[in-house]
């Protein structure tokens, strides 16, 4: 079998190479010279867009600039934003509620790691139930629903039309919430399939497949009425993500129902890593590929590279999962496939890094003003870091040290929080005012949100990474008793709880602000909610 797989892999490699050559020769990966500019209206280049729903059609009183050129273009954009309003609000509002619940669950689980006798009288609150509840609520409640909300808002914008079939997504939102609620309730009751990331019982899984399918329908309906020649790279990522999710969920859960032992473990990690790589990642990258150029008014640096990066991500990310089982009872060829593809991940990651960071280069002053950009750029930088880190510690030498330690937990949070959550926060700051037609009333709350989660997560990540490395070194010293690897982590586990508590405060501030916005409480602003008014920045730059 191993030989057959190697030959197949080799042949697939040749086929893929031929496909890439064909695509390049046919110009399939270039999108013409204007591919990167399809997201801009004529005359819009050089003018940054901000969430400023109340003053769209008037020149900004501070800068005198209009966000675009023709009234028709602006009107079309407003119609696109309003067309996705209901499903976007359903998904985004639910996501924020799940975020608050999921982070509280995470904080309790974290405290229990250094206070093991706290809240020990109830099964519901035992660590082994809280941990999967936390993971599944933040993964399927917060990250998935926030990602879908941003996807549904992006679709009509990217295709320059209104959202079609939004009702299917709305129904999908209801089913999705029922599924998360049913799943987390069953985990709280101790009903679990016992596989990390695949804990939900199968009836809940079936609901997710159905809801995921419903959510993808508006994309295909809207694609049929699109008014753009070229599909911008974000559309590629969104299409793939919305196709991948139901497949992943169906195959991952279906296969694991019937398999056992080691093959079940390999499917388990094929699925689990793909939820990160082929679901959260493309949803977040689709948003950042749109928002960064839009806000600074500049097309992305190398458009062709972004399209190649897309296919590289699909090809390599889909195979990396087995690096979670290095050193385990898994066939060597399988582990090697995952290590090689993990290293190949440098290709799509560098493609994204070149595009997003070089596009920002020389425009960092926008980070002082735009809340969206600050979150999204932080997320994009973290994507580069977390991907490099992930590739490197899939190497056997480093993996031996970091495997089975808190270091991996810190890494997972760098991806799910530092990268994906930051981008979803940033995109919500952009699209929510536009779909509710009301600007964020209190920019200071956005500042508070940013610094609480930034500092909190910094403490969390740095603390847990150091603790995990010390734990790994202690575990590899044969002469040290195992307990040394536990004792050495305690101060860092406490640091994780402190960081987590700060993140929770940030989330409450954010959730409160979202509630105020949705209810149109607070002062109605006519200018975009910025950290610092643009006029002040302009004056500073002149002097």
């Amino acid at each position, binding site marked *: 079998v191993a030989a057959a797989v190697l030959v197949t892999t080799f042949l697939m490699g040749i086929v893929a190479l031929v496909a890439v050559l064909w695509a390049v020769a046919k110009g399939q990966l270039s999108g013409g010279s204007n591919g990167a500019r399809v997201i801009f209206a004529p005359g819009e280049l050089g003018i940054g867009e901000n969430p400023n729903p109340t003053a769209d059609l008037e020149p900004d009183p501070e800068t005198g600039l209009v966000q675009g050129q023709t009234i028709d273009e602006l009107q079309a954009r407003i119609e696109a934003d309003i067309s996705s309003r209901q499903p976007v609000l359903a998904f985004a509002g639910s996501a924020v509620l799940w975020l608050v619940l999921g982070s509280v669950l995470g904080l309790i689980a974290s405290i229990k*790691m250094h206070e*093991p006798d706290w809240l020990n009288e109830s099964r519901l609150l035992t660590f082994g139930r809280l941990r999967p509840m936390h993971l599944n609520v933040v993964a399927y409640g917060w990250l998935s629903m926030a990602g879908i909300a941003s996807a549904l808002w992006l679709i009509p914008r990217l295709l320059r039309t209104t959202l079609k079939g939004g009702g299917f997504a709305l129904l999908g939102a209801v089913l999705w919430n029922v599924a998360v609620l049913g799943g987390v309730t069953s985990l709280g009751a101790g009903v*679990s399939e016992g596989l*990390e990331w695949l804990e939900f019982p199968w009836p809940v899984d079936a609901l997710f497949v159905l809801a995921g399918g419903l959510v993808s329908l508006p994309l295909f309906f809207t694609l049929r009425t699109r008014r753009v020649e070229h599909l911008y790279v974000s559309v590629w990522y969104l299409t793939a993500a919305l196709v991948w999710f139901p497949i992943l969920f169906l195959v991952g859960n279906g*296969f694991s129902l019937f398999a056992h*032992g080691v093959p079940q473990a390999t499917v388990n*990690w094929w699925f689990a890593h793909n939820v990160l790589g082929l679901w959260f990642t493309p949803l977040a990258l689709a948003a950042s590929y749109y928002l960064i150029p839009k806000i600074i008014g500049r097309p992305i640096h190398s458009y062709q590279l972004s399209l190649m990066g897309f296919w590289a991500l699909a090809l390599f990310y889909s195979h990396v999962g087995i690096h979670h089982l290095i050193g*385990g009872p898994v066939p060597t060829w399988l582990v090697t496939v995952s290590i090689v593809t993990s290293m190949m991940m440098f290709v799509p990651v560098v493609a994204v890094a070149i595009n997003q960071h070089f596009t920002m280069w020389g425009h960092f002053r926008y980070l002082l003003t735009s809340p969206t950009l600050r979150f999204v750029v932080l997320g994009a930088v973290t994507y580069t870091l977390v991907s490099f880190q992930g590739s490197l510690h899939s190497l056997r030498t480093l993996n031996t040290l970091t495997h*089975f330690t808190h270091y991996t937990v810190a890494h997972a949070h760098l991806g799910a929080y530092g990268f994906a959550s930051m981008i979803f926060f940033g995109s919500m700051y952009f699209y929510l005012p536009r779909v509710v037609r009301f600007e964020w009333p209190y920019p200071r709350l956005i500042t508070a949100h940013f610094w609480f989660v930034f500092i909190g997560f910094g403490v969390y990540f740095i603390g847990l990474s150091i603790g995990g490395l010390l734990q790994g070194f202690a575990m590899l010293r044969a002469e040290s008793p195992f307990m040394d690897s536990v004792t050495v982590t305690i101060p860092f586990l406490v640091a994780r709880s402190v960081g987590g508590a700060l993140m929770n405060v940030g989330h409450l501030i954010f959730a409160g602000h979202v509630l105020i916005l949705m209810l149109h409480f607070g002062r109605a602003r006519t200018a975009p909610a910025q950290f610092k008014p643009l006029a002040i920045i302009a004056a500073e730059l002149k002097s």
Partner: protein
Amino acid sequence: MKPLEITLGAASIVMFAGAVLGLAPELQLGSISPPAGLKPYTLSERRGRATYVDLGCMYCHSQQPRDKVQAPDEERGWGRAATPGDYSYDRPHLLGTMRTGPDLLNIGVRQPSEDWHLLHLYQPRAVVPGSIMPSYPFLFVKKDPKLLYPGDRTLKVPPPYDEPGVAVVVTEEAGTWSRT
């Protein structure tokens, strides 16, 4: 590219990856036989596994000793490097990804004392000072020592974790696994 091309390309890549990482191992390992001496789980062992899953033990304990070339797992008494056959009867697999606590694949051989395990579940710090494992008081019932039923199995809890005038009785869930 057209939406259809992106859709088909994306879908076929992920299915191919699923075949490589899932179907191929199933074909390669599906017919592998368990090592000599490995028996299917008894009813009691299966109930123990169910509790292990219910209380999420796998989130802190692995069940996959590594090769001695790679890590000193064998020197710690955790057993030889695991092979696929060792998991012939495992569903769900409980390989685990964390070692907040030690590997448990061969825990029964390394620590055969039932009393040790029961006390460890009731209060881990009573037997392993500094342990951060949760205590599981709900796997036990506290009773008046005068009102014990015949057959009630009580736990000798050392200070400072004992309570005067209280007998700690082992429930079926915690205990049966070791009786059959």
